[in-house]
């Protein structure tokens, strides 16, 4: 694998924007879907742009992720494919979520290309909104040092922060470049052709960058294992699980911001859950002496886990959306990891690999069934 070294002009975002500008000018793409600062300045959203002048307000690698890129792409292509050639500039986890959503028929990937960037993680959205300018400065340090205490907890346990196991086309390497340059790495034939069109020859050696990525991956894997064994202790048994989710007010925000949760009407907001005869509530109350309202909080979390954990790409946006700081993302990544390992499934890696519960083999999982006696 080879790449191209591009010198860094003032900062990372501006350097990437120059490349995006050229891609639009040379008509390699009809439009670009890229994060952008909102007019009031203290947050970010996605913009679909076909005019390079609008790249001004854009930030390809924003310090926060208030909107999951996959959710933005779903909003655009849920009803069908686009006829425009679109380049989506996203973080690796957002691309992985997009691939999962395409398996759930929520995104049409035809004519869509991806540009990914080495991701150090993101800051917590609410903290950022409180003090945007300070946080911007803080994040610049995060990119240079490649570590940070103020990041989303799941970011510290993320091993898919670079080019491996993601279906991106053009990848931008940032790690280990000491703020001097970036690496443009084509991950597909399509990418090679596009970069060729803008006169970028990918012939530089990138092995030192790859080594650095492996080093950091190893470190992150250790952090991940530590986090997960901590969570194993914290969540074992109904009582502990209750404690972990004790602050939850059952607002369902986590489900709403999750890119994988795509049902128009979540089961937990359907008639089955909210149109219940009063007698049923009283029977439950009488059995235990009393019940909490809203009801079924743990059921909601465990239910959501059974529905989406096979595709959980641990982006951590659920925890960002929680008004009560429940460690939702951490618990879901932990469980997601365990069930994905059980099926040897890596979400977002392969477009053609179906989600394990949507497929089967005739002879498998014998250890779970009981067929004798």
């Amino acid at each position: 694998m080879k790449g191209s070294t591009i010198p860094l002009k003032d900062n990372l975002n501006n350097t990437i924007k120059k490349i995006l500008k050229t891609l639009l000018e040379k008509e390699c793409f009809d439009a670009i879907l890229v994060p952008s600062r909102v007019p009031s300045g203290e947050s970010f959203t996605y913009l679909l742009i076909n005019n390079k002048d609008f790249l001004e307000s854009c930030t390809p690698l924003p310090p926060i992720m208030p909107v999951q890129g996959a959710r933005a792409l779903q909003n655009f292509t849920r009803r069908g494919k686009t006829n425009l050639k679109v380049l989506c500039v996203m973080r690796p986890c957002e691309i992985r979520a997009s691939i999962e959503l395409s398996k759930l028929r929520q995104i049409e990937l035809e004519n869509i290309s991806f540009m990914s960037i080495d991701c150090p993680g993101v800051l917590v959205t609410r903290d950022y909104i409180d003090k945007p300018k300070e946080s911007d400065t803080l994040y610049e340090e995060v990119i240079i040092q490649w570590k940070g205490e103020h990041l989303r907890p799941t970011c510290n346990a993320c091993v898919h922060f670079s080019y491996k196991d993601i279906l991106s086309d053009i990848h931008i390497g940032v790690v280990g470049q000491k703020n001097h340059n970036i690496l443009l790495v084509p991950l597909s034939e399509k990418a090679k052709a596009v970069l060729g069109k803008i006169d970028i020859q990918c012939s530089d050696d990138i092995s030192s960058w790859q080594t650095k990525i492996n080093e950091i991956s190893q470190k992150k894997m250790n952090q991940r294992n530590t986090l997960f064994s901590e969570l194993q202790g914290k969540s074992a048994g109904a009582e502990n699980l209750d404690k972990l989710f004790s602050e939850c007010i059952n607002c369902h925000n986590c489900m709403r911001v999750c890119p994988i949760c795509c049902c128009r009407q979540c089961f937990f907001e359907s008639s089955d859950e909210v149109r219940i005869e009063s007698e049923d509530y009283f029977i439950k109350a009488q059995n235990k002496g009393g019940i909490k309202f809203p009801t079924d909080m743990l059921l909601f979390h465990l239910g959501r886990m059974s529905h989406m954990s096979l595709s959980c790409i641990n982006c951590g946006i659920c925890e960002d959306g929680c008004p009560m700081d429940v460690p939702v993302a951490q618990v879901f990544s932990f469980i997601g990891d365990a069930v994905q390992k059980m099926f040897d499934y890596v979400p977002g890696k392969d477009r053609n690999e179906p989600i394990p519960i949507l497929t089967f083999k005739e002879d498998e999982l014998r250890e779970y069934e009981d067929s004798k006696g």
Partner: protein
Amino acid sequence: MKSFKTHKSPDDTIRDMLLFLLENKKVSSIFALSKVHNNNYAYTLITDKELLKNITPTFPLMPANAGKMISRLTMIEAVKSPVAVVLRPCELRALFELVKLEQAKLDNLLFISFTCGGVFPIKTKKDSVENALKNYWTNAKTGEDLQELRECCRICENFVPDNADIILQLAGKDIDNGTSVLMKTEKGAGFLNGMSEQFSEESLESTALDTIGEIRKEKKQKIFADLKTEDFGIEGLVNIFGRCINCHACSKVCPVCYCKLCYFESADNDAGPSIFEIELKKRSALRIPADTVLYHLGRMTHIGFTCVGCGMCSDVCPTNIPIATIFTKVSERVQKAFEYIPGKDLEEKVPVSVFEMKELEDVED
């Protein structure tokens, strides 16, 4: 009204009342805020009197709007045996609006409420609230502004529960000297008939309440004036709702936003890629997810008349948009234009569901 005074704290007074009602089988269960395990607070439906020791009905937190919860309970059918419900004035008003919208049934419900000093935002750490209690009740007595409360509460003039059966006088009173209980309705007096306390005659002490009302009104005028919604225009709307992430949490916790499948989540609102492509051609750039301002304006047209200003929406917003303040302000103006007070009178229908043959001549042509 019939009344009595206890030498106990408000929470203890309510506990005694509810114990009396449960033990004498006047109610089969009670609904109130409780301190549940792990140091948390949640609304609970209780049938076992042993669990009454955990209730904290006047604790200044609102983890969910009780009106919405009672609507869940009585959505399909009314409760079959009496239930005593302890809730705040805005929650009771929300419930009355929900009854008008056919989302709840009031039969067999006994309402116990109190003159309300407001609540802290749900994000506030529980131990901070517990430590701030003394300060909270001092402020509730004088009406002096407490900045840490929900903004909606600091500007609320509707803090006297119009439609409760039993009212505790808390705001405007020194609760260290005991608690005053008024039985506003015959029904309320009937339920508490036989409680050991001697009943006397009393009415709501309006002087202190008027003072508090004045303070809150002034605060409201200032906060509303600072918000300057009249100068928003499209630029202002884009600015204030700019960081909205279309999560719809505000609509889900709102008591009067009751549609099971919101228009904005239905297939009707999905735009195909061709629409995006057309809009992109028109504007050269397009925010995605789209229709953020439309969502808020649309929701405003749908709940403008029924918003009770409880403030749940601002509490759950992941990007701290002051939704409650904006919605409370605009809906108050809309309600005033039709002389409508949500939750006050069950017979007074929501303005969009009735009409006069001759009216509003200034808007038609």
